[in-house]
Every structure is written in C-alpha cells, then in structure tokens.
C-alpha cells in the first residue's frame, strides 16, 4: 500500500468499510509513515467537526410531521385494498367528495326555484304559485299580441279525473310509482312511497324505493323509502344502497338509520372498513358516536381516526 492509496482510503478505514486485510495493511503503513499519520489525524478531526454539526430532530418537529402526515393520509386516495374493493362493490369511489350529485341537484333546485319565482311572480308583483297556468291546471302554449293592444293566449288544459282502487292494483300502482318519481310536491312523493310499501317485494316497486332512497332531493322522502326497505335490509342491492347512503347522504338522520340497518344484519363485518371510513370523514358528532359504537360492538378498531 502506498501513501496515495492510504490517504484515499482513510475515510473507508474510519467508517469500517475496508476488508480486514486492507485495514491491517493501512494500519501497518500509517505506523511507519509520518505523513500518512498526519493525514489520519486530519481525517479524524474532520470527522469530529462533522459530528459536532449533526442535528437531531426535535420531538416537536417529529410530532408536527406525524400530525401533518396523518391529515394528508386521510385526504389521500387509498391504495388498492379493502376500501377500494368495497368502493368497487358499491360502484362508487370511496375517497370521493361527499354528495357531488346531490349538491348539483340541490343547486339546480335552488336555481329552478329562483327562476320559477321570477317567472311566476313577474313584474305584476303577483305572489308565486298564483299564475293562471298553475292555478287552473293549464299550460300556456301560445301568446299573440294584436294591434288593438290586446293579447291572445292559447291554454292547454288538463282535465282532472279521479281514480279509485287498492294500491296493489296494477293501474293504481303504476300511478303511485309515477307520483313517487315525478310529483313536484315531496308530500305526495312520500305518501306514494308509503302506499307502495306493501308491494316492496316486487321488482318495480323495489327499484322505485331504492331510487328514492338515493336520489330524492327531500330527506323526508328518502327516510320514507328507507323505512319501506327496512324488511329487505339483508338483501345485497339494499345493503349496497344503504352503504352509499352512509357515505354520501347529506342528512345525518339517514346516515344513522343506515348504520343501524347495516349493522343489525348478518355479514356486518363486511362494513367495518366502511364504518372506519365514515368515522374518518364524518362531521356530525352524533353520527360519529353511533359509528364508533357500531365499530366497538364489532370489536373493530376505532384507533386514531
């Protein structure tokens, strides 16, 4: 070993990265060579100086990092795993923002209400819902001012009929189904669903109930649908819809009902991940409490969510 090799290898020697043979050869050389001994001393002083500048992260910094990471993890999309599989099963993205569709629907309703009020109130100052078309069950189809300053209005009138029958009768059921989807008055929609309850075992009625549960803009109507579906809470499509309600419905009462129904049935362990996800994102303290209780009853971790 010559001086050049020794001085090049000094850091490796101090770090213990030399083979036993090379280490021995270096030590032998240093003992016999004053210049290399000096170089080794210099290298040791460099190490000491470097050691003195070492920083240890403070406990506060470490805690701050952990807190920030934890918050980011909650917001981050989860990797392929239980939640992703559950989300796929539910046909939705688990980490998605709450209520995009419902928020859009709500915005649309607000907009409709706004423009509707402007149209029906009009410059005449008449209160809304007193326009001739709505109050008389007719629609304006045509308007034509004439030279004499008058106006010709063509109305399309709908004749009112009364139909009487039992809710399970085909003709009545079809009308009730139409009302549950199309009636402007939420009271009518809720009443229709209530009358349809007895037929909830039939596919058409079941579809209407599920649709109302997830998509009706009125929480009272959605609750009515949930009540009608209660006897079928063990069925897969109902459980899937309830899981989506749990994650996406804006109404805390409905979310609580969904927790109860999902955890009262067999196979409830499948919803542990969903409940943990809800606990992560839930803002309502009562829903969180119910969710936490449900997890505890399932002996599942509520951890540091």
């Amino acid at each position: 070993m010559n001086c050049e090799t020794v001085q090049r290898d000094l850091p490796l020697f101090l770090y213990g990265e030399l083979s036993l043979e090379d280490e021995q050869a270096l030590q032998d050389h240093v003992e016999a060579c004053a210049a290399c001994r000096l170089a080794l001393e210099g290298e040791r002083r460099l190490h000491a100086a470097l050691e003195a500048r070492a920083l240890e992260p403070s406990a506060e910094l470490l805690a701050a990092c952990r807190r920030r990471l934890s918050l980011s993890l909650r917001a981050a999309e989860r990797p392929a795993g239980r939640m992703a599989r559950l989300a796929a099963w539910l046909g939705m993205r688990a980490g998605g923002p709450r209520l995009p569709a419902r928020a859009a629907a709500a915005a649309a309703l607000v907009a409709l209400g706004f423009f509707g009020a402007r149209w029906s109130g009009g410059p005449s100052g008449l209160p809304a819902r007193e326009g001739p078309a709505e109050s008389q069950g007719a629609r304006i189809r045509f308007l034509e001012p004439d030279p004499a300053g008058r106006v010709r209005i063509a109305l399309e009138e709908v004749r009112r009929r009364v139909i009487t029958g039992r809710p399970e009768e085909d003709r009545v059921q079809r009308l009730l189904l139409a009302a549950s989807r199309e009636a402007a008055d939420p009271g009518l929609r809720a009443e229709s669903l209530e009358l349809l309850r007895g037929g909830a075992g039939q596919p058409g009625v079941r579809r209407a109930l599920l649709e109302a549960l997830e998509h009706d803009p009125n929480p009272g109507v959605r609750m009515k649908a949930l009540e009608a579906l209660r006897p079928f809470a063990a069925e897969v499509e109902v459980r899937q819809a309830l899981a989506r309600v749990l994650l996406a419905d804006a109404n805390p009462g409905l979310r609580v009902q969904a927790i109860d129904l999902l955890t009262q049935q067999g196979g409830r362990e499948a919803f542990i991940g969903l409940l943990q996800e809800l606990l992560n994102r839930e803002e309502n303290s009562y829903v969180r409490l119910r969710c936490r209780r449900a997890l505890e009853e399932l002996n599942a971790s509520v951890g540091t969510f």
Partner: protein
Amino acid sequence: MTPQPEPPPAAEAAAGVSLEEAALIRAARNGDQEAFERLVRLYDRSVLGLALNLLRSPEDAQEVYQEAFLRVYKNLHLFRADSNFHTWLYRIVTNVALDYLRKRKVRREAAAAAETPEGERDRLEGVPEPRALGDPQRALLNRELACRLEGALESLTARERLVFELRHYQGLRLRAIGQMLGASEEAAKTCLFRATRKMRAALRDFV
C-alpha cells in the same frame, strides 16, 4: 392495478422483515391507515434526521418527510414483501431528498448570482445551532470552521452529499447505499471519495 398476492411468512422471514413489520405492511396494504402510521413510526425519526441534516432546515425537512411517506403510502402495493422494506423505503426517501436538494441548489445558485453586487452572503445565516456536545468538540467548531464546513457540503453534488450523509450520519453501509440509489457499491464508494476529497480541500487549514 392488480394487487399482489400475500407472500408466505417464510418469504418475509427470509427477507429479514420482523413479524411486527410484516403484519403492519400487510394491514397497511389493505388500506389500514392506523397500521401504516405505526409502520411509519418504526422509521420516521431516522428519515427526518436524514432530511434535517441534508437540508439544515426544519421546514424543508418536513417537506421531504411528508412527500416521502405519502409516496410510500401510495406505492405500498408495489413493495415486494420478499425484499427489504428498509431499503425500499430509503430508495423512495433518497429519491425525494435528491430531487429536493437539486431544486434547492438551483434556487440558491440563482439567489447567490443575484446577490453578487452586494457581496457574498453569510453562509451561516439560517444554519441551526449544532447539538450540545462536550467541550473539546464544541471548541473545535468555531464559527469559521462551521462556515467552511457548510460551504464545503454545499459544494458537493446532490448525489455526493446524499451518499456522504447516508454513510456518515445514518451509518449505512456503502453496499446498502448503492442499492438505495440503484447503483453499485463501487459507485457509492467513488461518490464518498469525491465528497471527502472536496471537504478535505475546503478545510485544509483547519483539520
């Protein structure tokens, strides 16, 4: 992306993964955030220490910590359970740190160029106090030496700096450092030689 099948415990044992670590990795891969946070805690002090010593700024260190562990979380499904988790984790951490160092170097060079009319900036500005040590070492680290030392470290390339930090402060073997950087042990050794040579040259009058 197709999830990988869970490896048998024997594969984990062969890879030198502790049972606790293996269980945490499995749970975290299944979306268990609590398990992931526990897994993080097995390593995050040393990761933060590396970032802090590299970047000499708690704010920058926190950025690297955050970015590195989020990448780990997002890519955990790609980790092959028969490999070494520590090496895999540090490969991500070193990539993030290298990116950060390079970007910061460019920013600082641009800032230094802008400062030249007023003179050289004080390199000790923003340098945190060294940790308390015994008197001999504290005496050794006078202000001038600290200034030269920081200057010497700043003059290293990002890769040299990282290899030096991993070897000197993290105590990792050159073989492991090579693996983390996707290079050979020889390449890591060459980096270390260059780094120490530059530092020796910069501190010739002091050590």
